[in-house]
């Protein structure tokens, strides 16, 4: 099939490459594309069409049309006509049942005619409604494109690279290369991108090829898909040299295998030295397309007839085939036998990128094409994309035939001339509406080879001109792009505390909390909780957000931010605080202590630290107070030591007086513990005597080891998040985000004691005043179950058959011997001993309100 070696061919005939197609080896030369190698090996049918499963062959050979899409190494919808051959590639056809030459689904084309007009399934398959999923599944299987392997996972690595250059040239044809060279000679930094591998190495400028400009976005951003890298390019000057797209003609049989655009013939014969047929007919509207006759003759193909539309515009053109392959062409009733029909309407400038950048697209009636005008600043067009196409005939919107064959407007989605006429008759008369109804221009070619044809057809049918019809809006992506390249590298960053490796060594089950990896437990969470009640437990709480608020206005700043009072917080004391928005909603909570004058140490929830930091910084910017905020979350580790024997353990490791008189509940003290400088916070989230030890991160592991080693005989054991959640629930301590949501306020969350209405102002004051004066719709209260059932989080609270609330937390407490939880209830239910029911697995289980902490309700153990 190959012609003898010729000058200018892109092949390196000294070597051979082999890839597999449907499991059989196909040989190729370096320089071949998968498409050219298959064609050289005798393949003519490259795909089956979207709806009718008609055989389709090479049409454009330049990556524009959908006809050669195959699955290459598992990637569907690869246009093999432009995909370079690599050794060992596995190529499979797609959208066929059987083989490309004998596709069992082609029965749709023969019997399906009454069932397959545009919009058929919208109208027909909507009733009965319940059947649609089955219809849909069936349709997805018989119609469509390639399939992705849903279980394949991430293949390869995708990266993003940001680039800034003086000049970006899109398109490496004659004009593009010239523009790039000129700019480079002027000393500009130039980047040129082209869809194909270049024949020559660039001189003085950088080249990305193969690469595709996806669009021109706001601010002149041009993302370029270069396979596994997405370049985000910003240029002072963007030169668009995307050239033209040859347009197919509309005539019956225009999709037969053997009908090609001139450029396809040019590439097959010149680049790959392949003879595309034996006997050819040419129908063309411009000089450049007609020149293809010379290529054909050079390749030894007989040119039976040339129809120059500039001189003679026939009324009727029809391609007649058998088994989907072209056999003859009938031009105005004169039949010509041939196996190749080179047919093209006018060359349409590929204006899409320019239109995205803001250019106006105007119809040029004398040449029958749309041309870009009024380019925005910083964007230029050179070469044929500007509309410099020479003398061009305007072809008919469609040519008549005897009526035997379908005439396709859109080969991507199998939309025929008849379908478009029907859509117009149904009233879809605007091009944007008709596009959505018929799906013309919405297929893989994205209008490259069907938009102009569709516009011409609308104009003729509506007896108006093309400029009145206009074009559809050009939007990115201009070229198909894989989702992988848009997604970029698979980042799943994890934050780990400085004690992380100790948890792993202790056999912890790790879990995600926001970005953090934290121990869920060390095997038996309930036993861990019991150990905290009976002996002493240690938990890594390094994930807490930690902020230093410093400066002369620090106290006033916190006073304004929190509903609590801080002006009177003495040095060395701690206060629990809840942050509120101006809408009165709880945004975070934590403890605030005053280690020294004009110094506050603020802790936040583990997942809220970044939000709180931004919140603090923003209010500081608004108020302009004399305050510095320092984020020390990562710099400090923290370990909570809790349980009745916590003091005994701490006393072994520090020389500071940790007696109940010297270090009271809610006292803070700076001291060395096990030789590590620590800030000791005596607080009690888990309900037992407890000390939070905050120290520099590098010492975290050491401190942890010392606590466990010196507390071994006291029963010191680590406990995880699950145990902590149970322990805090026994105390009815809330977790922001778990027990509260974006609607919750501090009064409704049962914490009226933190809200100091007597303060002049604080963020959220008016909203909370409004809540105080008008009452809450619901309250957060504790409850216990009458039996051992543990209701799910989010479980429905039912009273008198009506849903009236929801469960936010629930656990079985081995210490209490019952199931306890927190729930949002309407005010009339939020009374001690009120009874209600919770839906669990469809059953209703009885529960009872408990307003006070389940464990140590008076906090005696905390203060002991």
């Amino acid at each position, binding site marked *: 099939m190959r012609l003898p070696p010729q000058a200018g061919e892109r092949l390196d005939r000294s070597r051979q490459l082999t890839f597999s197609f449907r499991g059989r080896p196909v040989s190729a030369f370096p320089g071949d594309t998968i498409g050219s190698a298959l064609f050289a090996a005798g393949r003519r049918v490259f795909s089956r069409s979207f709806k009718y499963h008609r055989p389709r062959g090479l049409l454009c050979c330049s990556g524009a049309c959908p006809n050669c899409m195959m699955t290459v190494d598992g990637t569907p919808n690869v246009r093999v006509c432009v995909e370079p051959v690599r050794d060992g590639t596995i190529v499979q056809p797609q959208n066929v049942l059987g083989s490309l030459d004998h596709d069992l689904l082609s029965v749709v084309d023969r019997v399906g005619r009454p069932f397959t007009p545009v919009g058929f399934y919208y109208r027909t398959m909507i009733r009965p409604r319940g059947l649609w999923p089955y219809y849909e599944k069936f349709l997805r299987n018989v119609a469509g494109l390639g399939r992705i392997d849903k279980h394949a996972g991430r293949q390869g690595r995708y990266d993003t690279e*940001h680039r800034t250059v003086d000049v970006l040239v899109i398109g490496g044809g004659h004009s593009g290369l010239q523009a790039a060279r000129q700019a480079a000679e002027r000393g500009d930094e130039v980047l040129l991108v082209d869809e194909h591998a270049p024949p020559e190495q660039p001189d003085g400028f950088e080249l990305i090829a193969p690469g595709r400009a996806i669009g021109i*976005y*706001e*601010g002149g*951003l041009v993302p370029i898909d270069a396979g596994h890298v997405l370049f*985000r390019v*910003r240029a002072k000057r963007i030169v668009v040299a995307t050239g033209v797209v040859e347009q197919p003609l509309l005539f019956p049989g225009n999709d037969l295998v053997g009908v090609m655009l001139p450029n396809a013939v040019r590439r097959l014969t010149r680049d790959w030295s392949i003879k595309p047929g034996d006997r050819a007919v040419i129908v063309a509207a411009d000089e450049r397309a007609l020149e293809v006759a010379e290529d054909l003759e050079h390749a030894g193909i007989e040119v039976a007839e040339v129809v120059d539309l500039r001189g003679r515009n026939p009324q009727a053109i029809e391609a007649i085939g058998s088994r989907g392959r072209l056999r003859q062409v009938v031009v105005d009733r004169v039949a010509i036998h041939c196996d190749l029909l080179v047919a093209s309407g006018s060359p349409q400038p590929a204006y899409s990128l320019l239109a995205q950048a803001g250019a106006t697209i105007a119809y040029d009636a004398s040449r029958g094409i749309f041309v870009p005008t009024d380019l925005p600043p910083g964007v230029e067009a050179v070469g044929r994309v500007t509309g410099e196409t020479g003398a061009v005939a305007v072809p008919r919107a469609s040519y008549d035939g005897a009526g035997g064959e379908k005439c396709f407007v859109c080969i991507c989605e199998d939309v025929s001339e008849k379908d478009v006429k029907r859509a117009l008759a149904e009233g879809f008369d605007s091009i944007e509406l008709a596009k959505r109804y018929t799906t013309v221009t919405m297929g893989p070619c994205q209008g490259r080879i069907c938009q102009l044809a569709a516009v011409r057809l609308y104009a003729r049918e509506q007896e108006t001109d093309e400029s009145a019809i206009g074009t559809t809006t050009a939007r990115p992506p201009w070229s198909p792009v894989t989702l992988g390249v848009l997604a970029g590298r698979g980042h799943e960053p994890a934050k780990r505390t400085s004690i992380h490796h100790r948890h792993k060594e202790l056999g912890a089950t790790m879990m995600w909390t926001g970005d953090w990896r934290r121990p869920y437990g060390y095997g038996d969470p309930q036993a861990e909780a019991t150990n905290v009640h009976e002996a002493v437990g240690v938990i890594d709480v390094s994930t807490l957000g930690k902020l230093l608020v410093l400066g002369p206005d620090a106290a006033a700043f916190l006073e304004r931010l929190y509903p609590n009072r801080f002006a009177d917080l003495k040095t060395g004391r701690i206060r629990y605080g809840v942050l509120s928005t*101006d*809408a009165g909603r709880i945004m975070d909570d934590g403890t605030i202590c005053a280690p020294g004058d004009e110094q506050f140490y603020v802790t936040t929830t583990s997942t809220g630290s970044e939000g709180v930091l*931004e919140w603090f*910084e*923003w209010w500081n*910017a*608004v*108020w*302009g107070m004399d305050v510095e905020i320092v984020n020390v979350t990562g710099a400090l580790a923290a370990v909570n030591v809790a349980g009745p024997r916590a003091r005994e353990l701490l006393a072994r490791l520090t020389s500071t007086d940790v007696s109940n008189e010297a270090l009271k509940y809610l006292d803070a003290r700076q001291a060395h513990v096990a030789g590590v400088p620590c800030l000791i916070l005596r607080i009690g989230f888990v309900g037992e005597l407890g000390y939070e030890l905050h120290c520099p991160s590098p010492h975290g592991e050491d401190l942890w080891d010392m606590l466990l080693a010196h507390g071994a005989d006291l029963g010191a054991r680590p406990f995880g998040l699950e145990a902590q959640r149970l322990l805090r629930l026994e105390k009815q301590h809330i977790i922001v985000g778990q027990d509260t949501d974006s609607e919750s306020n501090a009064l409704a969350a049962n914490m009226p004691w933190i809200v100091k209405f007597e303060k*002049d*102002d604080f963020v959220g004051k*008016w*909203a909370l005043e*409004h809540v105080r004066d008008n009452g809450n719709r619901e309250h957060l209260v504790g409850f216990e179950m009458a039996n051992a059932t543990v209701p799910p989080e989010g479980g429905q609270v039912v009273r008198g058959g009506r849903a009236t609330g929801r469960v936010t937390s629930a656990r079985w407490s081995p210490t209490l011997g019952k199931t306890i939880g927190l729930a949002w209830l309407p005010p009339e239910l939020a009374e001690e001993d009120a009874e209600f029911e919770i839906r669990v697995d469809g059953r209703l289980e009885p529960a009872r309100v408990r307003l006070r902490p389940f464990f140590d309700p008076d906090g005696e153990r905390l203060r002991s």
Partner: protein
Amino acid sequence: MSFLLTCPNCGPRDVNEFAYAGEVTTRPVGGASLRELTDYVYFRRNVAGVQREWWHHRFGCERWFLAERDTRTNEVLRVELPGPAETGAAHEPEVPETPAV
């Protein structure tokens, strides 16, 4: 959005580095009516034109700053760090009149 935004601290950067925090609002002072308070909390002017707004250089210097941006074109006319003069005394950011469009 893909325009460049100039951080007063770091210079022009891709807008994806920043967090947008909405138009500059005036927090009512004591004695405001419920209506005024509700407007402050829930209502925005949603200007089609030049708007004064807050930005945070989240993936950069983490500074908060003010920008004047045309919401129709994303053209940024001015950026500045908030100054004590603007947010001082009554702590009220000054909101320039926005041209009607």
